[in-house]
Every structure is written in structure tokens, then in C-alpha cells.
């Protein structure tokens, strides 16, 4: 069973991401309502994929990506940034920090499904 951590401060957005992924088999989804919660949930069990928003109230998605990429425990974990089309600089930075993909909201459910399947297999 693969575990996916979804960090987004909007409960509706988390619910949407989760319902999009639920049709794919064999996933366990862990929700984090902010960056801090993500930091707390990461060590609580193996995480196979992180999906994060950029704009969060405590630490931003870039900081979370940097944390994951620089921590020997999670270094190889695939990362997807899902964010509303924002500054091009933020996007570049996210990818430069080592995010595997940057998905712009609104996205098609299939886009996310494909990306997740691709990164997990």
C-alpha cells in the first residue's frame, strides 16, 4: 500500500485531490492542513509521495520541498506541487528545489491521476 501526503490549507482542495486519487487503487492518503502538520506527519510512517500547495500560512510549499529534498530520510520521495497559477519565479524555484512536477490549478483529474501513477511506479 502506497502512502500519499497531501498538504493544502483548503479543506475543499484536499477533499478534491483525495477524491481524484481515490479511484486509483491501493493508496492511503494522509492529509495535512498546513506545512507544520506535514512536517509532523512525515516521520509517522513511510510516505511514498508528497503533494503540496505553495501558499500555506506557516511554512510555504517551497520550504516543504526543500525540507524533503535535504532530509536523508525522505530525499528520494517524489514531490508534486499543486498550486494556482502564480509567479513564474515560484514555479521555477519549486522545480529547481527538486519537485518532480508542478501542476497548475485548475487541473483535470486525469492529469493528477496520470502524474501520480507515473511517479509511484
Amino acid at each position, binding site marked *: 500500500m502506497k*502512502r500519499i501526503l497531501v498538504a493544502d490549507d483548503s*479543506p475543499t*482542495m484536499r477533499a478534491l485531490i*483525495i477524491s481524484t486519487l481515490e479511484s486509483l487503487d491501493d493508496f492511503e492518503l494522509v492529509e495535512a492542513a498546513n506545512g507544520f502538520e506535514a512536517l509532523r506527519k512525515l516521520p509517522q510512517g513511510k510516505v511514498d509521495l508528497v503533494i503540496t500547495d505553495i501558499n500555506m500560512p506557516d511554512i*510555504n510549499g517551497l520550504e516543504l520541498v526543500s525540507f524533503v529534498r535535504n532530509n536523508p530520510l525522505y530525499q528520494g520521495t517524489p514531490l508534486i506541487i499543486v498550486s494556482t497559477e502564480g509567479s513564474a519565479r515560484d514555479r521555477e*524555484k519549486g522545480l529547481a528545489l527538486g519537485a518532480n512536477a508542478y501542476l497548475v490549478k485548475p487541473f483535470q483529474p486525469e492529469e493528477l491521476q496520470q502524474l501520480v501513477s507515473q511517479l509511484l511506479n
Partner: protein
Amino acid sequence: MPSQAIDEFLAEAEELLEKLNQDLATLAEAAEGGKSNPDLVNGIFRDAHSIKGLAGMFGFTDVAELAHHLENLLDHLRLGKIAFDNNLVDCLFDTLEGVSGLISGKADNPEFSQDLSPYLTRIEHLLGGQPSAPEKGLDELDIDPSMLAVLTEYEEHRLQENLQQGKFLLVVKVAFSLLSFDTELAELTEAIKRDGEVISTLPGSNDDPELLAFKILCGSNLDVQGLRQQLGQPDLEIDLVTAPSSVQQVATAPVPAPEKIPQAELDLPTPQPAPEPANSDAGTVRSFSSSVRVDIGKLDYLMTIVGELALAKGAISQLCNEMQLNGVSQSRELEKAVHVLDRRLHDLQVGVMDVRMVPVRQLFDKMTRIVRRMAQELGKKVKVEIHGGDTELDKLIVEDLADPLMHIIRNALDHGIEPADQRAAIGKPETGMLVLSANQKGNHVVIEVSDDGKGIDPELLRKKGIEKELIAADANLSRQELFGLLFHPGFSTRDEVSEFSGRGVGMDVVKNNISALSGLIELESEVGEGTVMSLTLPITLAIIKALVISICDTDYAIPLNSVQETLMLDEDSIQTIEGREVMELRQQTLPLLRIDQLFQLSAKDTPQGQFVVVAGFADKRLGIVVDELRGQQDVVIKSLGGALSFVKGIAGAADLGNQKTILVLDVGGLIGETLQLDGVIGV
């Protein structure tokens, strides 16, 4: 998209909009002082951004587009590319209102849309011709590249701002236990913010897997030593990135703060025990939010069930009494069980009721926005003050209160508060004050709207009343009775119709709306000083204790919270003053009301008028003459529906449990009818 998902969107959007409104109001206040608050602006930006993201996901492209422009405007503001002034604040408010309008339209019909071009043109106009200030390259700074790499465009801008303002740029390095880092970090951040700003918080790993390391990039008025002193941690690891160029900038720390400050990385003791048990089984898809959104209809349903349970309990209790009278064994045990049931039922009722309660602040905040807009269009200066925003009222009452309250406020601004030059001429401060206050008194909440405007002259009301043939030329009316004229249908003291108040809705409609909520409206005014409009409302309409009485063989319920006492009626003590029956009660005159006459009932053969129920709020009261007192009961008030809602003096109907439905008297409305319009012809 399934409709339930859309409901979720609407609920979250509504929450975001409410928060945005509140935050914008706070920002607007700051705008008056010409100061911006970066944290607040960023919070507002983030919320607008969230709405845009959500709307986009649900295919509401128009909402997304308008929210995008709102976000863009806020982005320019937070990045310092556009001037922060009243013009901008107004545009933000209006655009937000546009977004609100679109979303509330979608709530009724997902296809709803609106022409966005007026909003977009205005925003473009604001954004046009505002060249962005050139910023220095950050690469020249001596900052760890890993920190620069995680800064969003906004954070880079904050960094620049701090540099330009001549702050010390510092990096504080700490490590906290995985179990408690968020609270410890929050405390540290708060402490840093007292003399500066946190620009970025970068988490990192630590040799100890139980610890999380953090690098906090901040701008501060204090240097390294100063900040250490301020935080009360002389050994805290702090790197200096850059010091302000000017020499006089060297600051000393104020007295160390008394609060507990988190430990530094170097002398960190063993990790503290977790404040809450760590959830080792985090592999769950449960929502981690501690609150749920519920349709008010579901709560109404629960309330109805609670009401029916109370009725069922009443029946059991009745049976129990009969069994006791008949000497049935075990009836004592049954009685005890009924008592326990009663208490638990009460707890349940209080619990369900509590869920329906919302703070009136939500309503007051909406009103603040209206005042702002109106004041501007009327060219008046008005400041709003809110007291008791945390006072709670039933959600449904709060909803129904919005329109009448808005009308009262419009009147206060339109007719009450004078234009700035007039105010100055009579020695008042140029800015008028409008105070919205709420405060709980027993089972009621009193909401007051007071202004320091020109007040209402009762003699002018008298003149107008005579002119409109509402009162006789020689009518002897008290001050309160004259004010009561204002609530009479068709009464208006101003001949020209103002765009705001004169929308064909008079104070009589406001009064009817308040009466429909079983509330009471009163007015007090001093010429030249101002006016206070107070609304007394029950905390909830959902379930109430009622006194069941009987008049002419018909049972009625009177809400118990408005019953002050009941008396035996002594026919001899009734006097008639100006054609109205009154009696003396402890040296005060109590007007009497005969429901049978009001409702034109005719008795068969029961004796008339055995008791008087003294009902009312504070000193506004009247005696209702009734034939019989039947007892107390919990009732759920149901609306009579549109067709019968105009019937005065009736608040609704209630089910008594024995398949019998009775009418509930509207005490507030009856008092209004009897007292305020006394001496008024043709009512």
C-alpha cells in the same frame, strides 16, 4: 461536479469571504493611518488566492477570473508595486463584493454569471501607470543560498523591504522537538515580531531524529546581541546577514520579555513530553479539521426531534403522576427515572441549541462595510465601533436580522449623522460615530445602534403626525409615544427620498421584521446628541418554554421568557383611562389587553378574565387577560407560513404533543400594538 462537492465549495468560499471582509475592514482602518500591515495583506492575498484556486477547480471561471484580478491587485500591494490608499481599499472592497455576489448567485443557480468588465476596468486603471520600484539583487547578500532558494516572490520582496528600511537581517537557528515544535516556533516567532518581521522559516533535519531544526530569516530593529537579549537567550545561535549601513541604527534591546522562550539548539534539554498523545496511526483519510459544517436544516430537524422527545417525556411524566395517585407500585422508581430523563433531555437541548449559536460579530462586520460604502457616497465621515461582537445568537435570527439592521444603519447615516462641515460648525468632531453593540440579558440579546448625529425631535414627529392625520391635533402623547409614530406605516419625516433609506421600506417594515423574530424595537433620541435604536431579541426561536393559557375555550402559548408574573384578576381594580383598560400594579399602571377582543373571539359559557399574565421586557409590559392558566411546556415554534404571516400578535404555532396545535402569542408585537401606537388614530 457532484452537488455535495459544490456545497463544500460554497461553504469554504463563504468562510473565506467572511474572513476577507473582516481582514479588509482591519486593513481599511490601517489605511486611514496610511500604514500597511504586511502579515495582514499577505493573509488577504492568500485567501483571495484560495478562492481563485477553488473556483477554478469547480469550473466557475468567472469567479476565478475576478478573484484572479483581486489577487493580482493584492499581489501588487504586498509586493509594494502600488500605493496603499483609500482608493485602493475601496476597489478591494468592491471587487470582493463582486466575488461574493457571483458566488451567492451560484449558490442558487450554478449557471449564474455577471458582467465583470466594470470591475476589471477599474482594477486595470489602478494597476496602470504604477511602475514597480527597482529592487536590488539579492545575490549580493551574504545569505545561505539554500535559504534564498525557498523564498517565494513575496518573501523576496519582504527581504528587500527590510533591507531598504535599514533593518538588521538575521538568521536564527533553533531545534525543537518533533512533538511540540509548532507551539514553540509560534512563541519564538511572536517574540521576534515584537521588534521585527519573520521573512521565512526553513525546516531542516537534525542529527537527533526526534528534533527538527529551523532557520528563521528575519528583519529586526535589533542586532544579534539585542535580539538574544530580547528573547532572553544569551546563547541563541543567530547569524548576522547584513547590518544597516547607517551608524545610528544600532539598537539596544528592551527589557527581556517575561514569556517562556524556546530553548536554543545548543543547550536543548531532553525533548519535552508531548502536549497531546502523538497519533502513531497517522495512516487515515479522516479529516484532521476539528470542526464540521452543517446545514442549518439538519440542526432544525434535530431540534424538532428534541422538542418531540420533550413532549413524549411530558406524557410519561403525566402517566407517572396518575400512577402515583392510583397508588401503583414502582411509580416512585418511575418518577426518578423520569427525572434523570428530564435532566439529560435538558442537556441535549442545551447542546443542540449551542451548536446553532453564532457570534453577532459576523453581522456587525458586514454592517461595517455597508457604513463605509454609504459614508463615502454620502460624503460623510463616519467611524464604526463594535462592542460585544462575541455575543451569540441563533444563526437563523442573525440571518433575519441583517436586513432590518441594515435599514436602521442606513437611517442613522442618512438622517442622523451630519456632514463633516455641519458637524464642525456646531463644535462636534468631524467624524461621526456609529456604535454597534450587543449584550446578553437573560434569555434575550439587546442589540443597539447608536449614532452621535442630530437626533430626532419628538415635536417634529408630532407635527408630521398631525399633518398626516395619524394623531389628533390635541392628542396628549408621551415622548415614547411620539417616537412610536416613526414605526407607523407610511410615516416618513423626510420628503425627498434618499437613495439609501428611502427605498420604499419604512421603519414599520423594520418593526414588523423584528416582531416576526419575537423581538422588540425601541428608540431613544436627544436632539443634537444622537439616537439609540435598540432591538431586544430572544436568543433562539427554536425551542422555548411556554406558558399555556386559555382564552374563550382556545389554548394559546405565551413564551415564558417574556412572562414576568401571573395574577388573579380583580375586576374592581380595572380602571379606564382614555378608553383603555388599565390596572394598578405596585404603584405602576399596567395596560391590559383582552385577546378575545383583539382576535374577535366569542366565549360560549366560560367565565371571562380570571387571570392576568404580566408579559413584556423590562419596563415595556402589559397584562394579558386570560381565562385559565394551564401550565408550562416546552414547545417548538413553527412558522405559520407566508399566507398567515401578516397576522399581528401571533408568533407561530406549536404542537402540544397530544395532536393538538395551538397558536403562540407574539408578546413583542402585542406590546408594540398596545403601547407604542397608543393614541394613534386608525390603527
